[in-house]
């Protein structure tokens, strides 16, 4: 293989990987619009990329890679429909007719948004929404998604199969929601993306360096959504929130994989440039849930030291969040912030006022209590609370962190 040929192969590989991220979702969306068949759409998109792997290294890059892929995928879909049985053709024609008549000619943007909204439809289970979004919008393989969520591949195959069957059988629409329901549906999409981000950020249940980086995927998908819906400030806020978390990632886990508590994190390892850029975007945005959460993250991220953190402001922001999106977890975080702002005795009082019914299996509640009791010098009670937290912790790093704290107070 000559030098030139090697470069062509490398160029082609880079171009295909780039194209996969950029073009997967538009192709799948356009083919679903055309055929109404999700599996067919994904298979034909896949086929187009396989063909690109065959052709591009030999023929060189096409002038318009996106157009080449879209045409190849569409031709493949038409070809497959032409070859399929009469019954299937009837079915497909019926589907196409269903889509055709009153629907105005749709744009690529509408197609892509329709795909996202269908994947995140509230009539699907949250698990199904997450899996579908990563598969159909994100273009991840079923095995990548299974691995990222630590489930068997056949479980993920089943989950995706059932979700697509429900979309088809129950007629979950493929369209952009009407203006009066748009905000609510956008919130639903953001909840899915934030869950994916958090799953990556706080991977629960063991270590696997080969695991796909779900946080990066979530940021990529949110960026894509922000481009498709530039008027939504909540998407911008969610992106800012993810940026602020992600910028501190390097300091969050030590070389052994242990979680470093915020207090002990080496702030020199935070990406201050990224933090400053993200925090600057927060000015003046209206007060939505993610804007408040991003403001809280910004308070942490811009604090020069742990002691210099504006805990009063953080407690106030959690108070706002209690109004907009109340949950026991928000109440817990507010109690922690009050414990920092006004002292552990105040924090403990707030903690005791939380309705903890839904937090019975949540390790961070006894962990927070343990920390406050430790700071109050109530060691025997703190010991009990640390033990309770350790029993509940599903993340090995969390467990090690709590065990270390427990040892520190056991042997002062």
């Amino acid at each position, binding site marked *: 293989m000559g030098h030139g040929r090697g470069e062509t192969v490398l160029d082609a590989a880079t171009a295909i990987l780039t194209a996969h991220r950029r073009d997967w979702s538009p192709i799948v969306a356009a083919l679903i619009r055309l055929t109404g068949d999700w599996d067919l759409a994904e298979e034909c998109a896949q086929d187009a990329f396989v063909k690109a792997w065959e052709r591009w290294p030999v023929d060189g890059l096409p002038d318009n890679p996106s157009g080449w892929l879209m045409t190849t995928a569409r031709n493949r879909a038409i070809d497959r429909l032409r070859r*399929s049985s009469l*019954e*299937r053709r009837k079915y497909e024609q019926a589907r196409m007719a269903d889509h055709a008549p009153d629907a105005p000619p749709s744009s690529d943007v509408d197609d892509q948004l329709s795909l996202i909204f269908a994947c995140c439809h509230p009539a699907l289970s949250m698990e199904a929404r997450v899996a579908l979004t990563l598969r159909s919008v994100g273009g991840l393989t079923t095995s990548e998604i299974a691995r990222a969520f630590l489930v068997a591949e056949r479980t993920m195959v089943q989950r995706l199969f059932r979700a697509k069957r429900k979309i088809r*059988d*129950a*007629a*979950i*629409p493929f369209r952009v*929601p009407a203006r009066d329901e748009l905000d609510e549906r956008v919130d639903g999409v953001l909840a899915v993306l934030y869950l994916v981000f958090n799953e990556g950020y706080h991977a629960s249940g063991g270590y696997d360096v080969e695991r796909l980086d779900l946080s990066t995927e979530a940021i990529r998908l949110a960026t894509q959504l922000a481009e498709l819906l530039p008027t939504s400030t909540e998407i911008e806020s969610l992106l800012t929130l993810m940026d602020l978390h992600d910028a501190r990632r390097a300091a969050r886990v030590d070389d052994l994989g242990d979680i470093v508590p915020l207090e002990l994190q080496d702030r020199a390892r935070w990406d201050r440039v990224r933090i400053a850029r993200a925090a600057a975007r927060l000015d003046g945005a209206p007060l939505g849930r993610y804007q408040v959460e991003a403001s809280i993250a910004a308070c942490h991220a811009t604090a020069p030291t742990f002691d210099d953190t504006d805990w009063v402001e953080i407690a106030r922001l959690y108070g706002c969040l209690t109004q907009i999106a109340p949950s026991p977890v928000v109440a817990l975080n507010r109690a922690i912030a009050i414990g920092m702002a006004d002292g552990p005795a105040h924090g403990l009082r707030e903690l005791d006022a939380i309705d903890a019914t839904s937090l019975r299996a949540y390790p961070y509640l006894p962990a927070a209590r343990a920390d406050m009791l430790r700071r109050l010098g109530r060691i025997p009670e703190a010991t009990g609370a640390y033990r309770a937290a350790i029993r509940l912790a599903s993340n090995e790093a969390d467990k090690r962190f709590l065990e270390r704290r427990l040892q520190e107070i056991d042997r002062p």
Partner: protein
Amino acid sequence: MRYMFLICAETAEIAEDDGHPDRDPTSWVKEMDGRGVRSIGERLASPEDATTVRVRDGQLLLTDGPFVETKELICGFDLIDCADLDEAIEIASKHPMARWGMVEVRPFWTPPPRS
């Protein structure tokens, strides 16, 4: 797209309590018939009046009562023909029993496409 709405009450008391104005579906029926999305629907007698029929090894087996015992009970049904699930959800959410019980929105079976 056709759906069967199974109208359920949360408790037997609610199902059997007649004449509660908030649960009267008359105006819902009128609205949906007017929109042309509801083809038929009926209120059902108490599950206590149900007979469950099974045939096993050629033998007819009868049980008094519904086939599944739950606190919630099906007290009516409607057949709805509308554009898609979003419209079906909108229609179901307007049914008075959505506030006192629940409405299961079940699509009619369609044959899976054969490849």
